[in-house]
């Protein structure tokens, strides 16, 4: 026997897309009328088939070892949720097989199975039972669950009055204390606050490292995936694109997402920008950078007329257009009067700019700013993703623009003079 806890072979799932009916469900009336129509038009067969097959998953194969923490990555519609639904037996595959050893608990959506009218206490028992816990088991874990969810004051309040954060906390707490051999978590933590997310991720890490349990985790937060998962699966249009170490999978995922930016050339002025790209040190164009990567912005400048006052300025902009930093240099440092174009690289050292989305402002002007030759704001959008910084758990929150080395010291004397 192998040590894999989940073995998936040739897994496919087909859905039928019906283009005719917009209704969500079939009505008996339609079925009958269609049958009658068919009987009448057996020879003519007027209509082309209005149905289309859609393979949400196609020939997916992988195996997961016990204690692995597996991230499942992919764009919307890549088949992540379908895969999890099949693994948790909600829906049946069209073909292929899965071998699972042990109990599976899935946390697919916030508070599924909670009844809004029931109190927190009642819902713990209800939800526990739905997930397959016995009453005895729930009772023995009850305090732990309440403690973890931090809802003790609201235990006897109907959950319809809970905040969405409390809702998720309680839901997660129940699922996490189920002690399943396999825990499936689909993108649910986005609702809780940063502190609770951290706690959940910590719990998941705990569950797998200490308890030797397997965690399957779907998220669009790459930082979280990098932090939590040791291996990852990249899905693309229902097929596995890559399986392997999380860091390399995340890299692949980002590269496949790149897109070129449109750019208007303004070639009438003295100096103008012909093209700008962002790339790595080797000139390989990319828009997604890991936190520790160096970021190079490569600017191609066209020159109509030489002058010694021409200056280039580069600003890094946050999403809200606030400037993170500005740098500038006189162009006369780089070229002589007979050149018609030059290309400059500016490198931002990796390990400084906090993971988030940024864009650039590139300006060609004179030193005082009274003359502007060319001006491009909010171009070359880049994304810096978290590859496991200390702040990874707070991904998506505004904790600042830079990450600095943390130097903490406890001082011997408690007083500050």
């Amino acid at each position, binding site marked *: 026997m192998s040590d894999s806890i989940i073995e998936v072979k040739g897994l496919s799932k087909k859905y039928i897309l019906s283009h005719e009916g917009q209704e969500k469900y079939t009505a*008996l009336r339609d079925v009958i009328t269609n049958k009658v129509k068919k009987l009448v038009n057996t020879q003519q067969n007027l209509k082309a088939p209005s149905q289309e097959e859609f393979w949400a998953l196609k020939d997916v194969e992988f195996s997961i070892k016990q204690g692995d923490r597996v991230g499942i990555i992919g764009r919307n519609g890549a088949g992540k949720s379908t895969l999890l639904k099949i693994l948790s*037996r909600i*829906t049946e595959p069209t073909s292929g097989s899965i071998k*699972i*050893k042990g109990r599976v608990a899935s946390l697919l959506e916030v508070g*599924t199975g909670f009844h809004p009218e*029931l109190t927190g206490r009642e819902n713990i028992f209800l939800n526990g039972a739905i997930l397959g816990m016995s009453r005895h088991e729930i009772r023995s874990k009850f305090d732990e669950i309440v403690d973890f969810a931090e809802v003790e004051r609201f235990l006897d309040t109907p959950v319809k009055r809970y905040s969405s954060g409390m809702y998720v906390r309680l839901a997660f707490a129940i699922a996490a204390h189920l002690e399943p051999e396999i825990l499936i978590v689909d993108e649910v933590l986005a609702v809780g606050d940063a502190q609770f997310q951290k706690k959940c991720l910590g719990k998941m890490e705990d569950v797998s490292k200490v308890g030797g349990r397997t965690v399957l985790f779907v998220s669009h937060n790459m930082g979280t995936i990098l932090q939590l998962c040791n291996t990852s699966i990249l899905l693309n249009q229902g097929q596995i694109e890559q399986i392997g170490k999380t860091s390399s999978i995340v890299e692949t995922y980002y590269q496949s997402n790149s897109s070129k930016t449109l750019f208007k050339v303004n070639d009438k002025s003295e100096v103008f920008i012909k093209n700008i790209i962002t790339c790595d040190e080797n000139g390989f164009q990319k828009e997604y950078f890991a936190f520790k990567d160096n970021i190079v912005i490569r600017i191609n400048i066209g020159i109509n007329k030489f002058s010694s006052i021409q200056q280039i300025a580069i600003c890094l902009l946050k999403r809200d257009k606030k400037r993170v930093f500005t740098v500038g240099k006189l162009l006369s440092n780089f070229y002589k009067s007979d050149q018609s174009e030059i290309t400059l690289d500016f490198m931002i050292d990796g390990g400084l700019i906090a993971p988030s989305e940024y864009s650039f402002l590139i300006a060609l002007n004179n030193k005082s700013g009274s003359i502007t030759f060319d001006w491009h704001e909010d171009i070359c959008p880049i994304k810096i993703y978290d590859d496991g910084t200390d702040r990874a758990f707070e991904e998506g929150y505004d904790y600042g623009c830079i990450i600095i080395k943390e130097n903490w010291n406890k001082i011997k004397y408690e007083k500050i003079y």
Partner: protein
Amino acid sequence: MEDSKELIIEAGKAEKNYWSDIYRFRELFFILSWRDLKVRYKQTVIGALWSIIRPLLTMVVFTVVFSKVANLPSEGTAPYAILVYAAMLPWQFFSNALTESSGSLIGNANLISKVYFPRMIIPASAVITSLVDFAISFVILIALMIGYHYTPDIKILLLPFFIILCFFSAFGIGLYLTALNVKYRDFRYIIPFIVQFGLYISPVGFSSNVVPEKWRLLYCLNPMVGVIDGFRWCILGETDLYVPGFILSTSITFIFLALGIWYFRKMEKSFADNI
């Protein structure tokens, strides 16, 4: 992890451990019915009294209409009110159970599309919920008997058997209808009709003895005829059970049950995709 069994999920194959899963989730039957009961009477004024008022009022109306207006005979010496109520009990149970269970899958769509557990638990727990109403309504029967100074026959001890029979007939038909309801939502219009129609073709307001002899066997094709006759036989004990009809009714009940389970199991796999 010693107790963890290997589970194999394959296309088109009924899992072997379906029934053992039902056993594993056995507490869910009661927790879901407990939830339904708890929720049903939230924000109501008289709460559980509804389970008493409805059959009681229907009984009064039926007694007046069938006994006083239509002048139909009772069975032996039994007061007409008790004759009606003895049938009203299983009928209310049946109609509630059928209505609740046939809408149960749609009502729990969020669970079905998000969590796995044997789906059969949902309609079953809906029937169990109705059983609780049945128990509450039963109190009225006892009150009626005391009021009329009517002593039931010793055969009343056999009543649990007929309660189970009623359970199965509601559950079997309910399974079939709830599975159909997932696919064809027309059934939510059909069900109230079945229930209303059934009330008149079942011997609720009258004794099935008033049905002419030559139609009697045909009449027993209705599974509820067997259940209601059985109830009256136990509670009133005034006339003998019409055995061929009873056997026919009971067989129909079990045929429906088998069909219901078979169809439900067949459709179960695609519930999450269709709901």
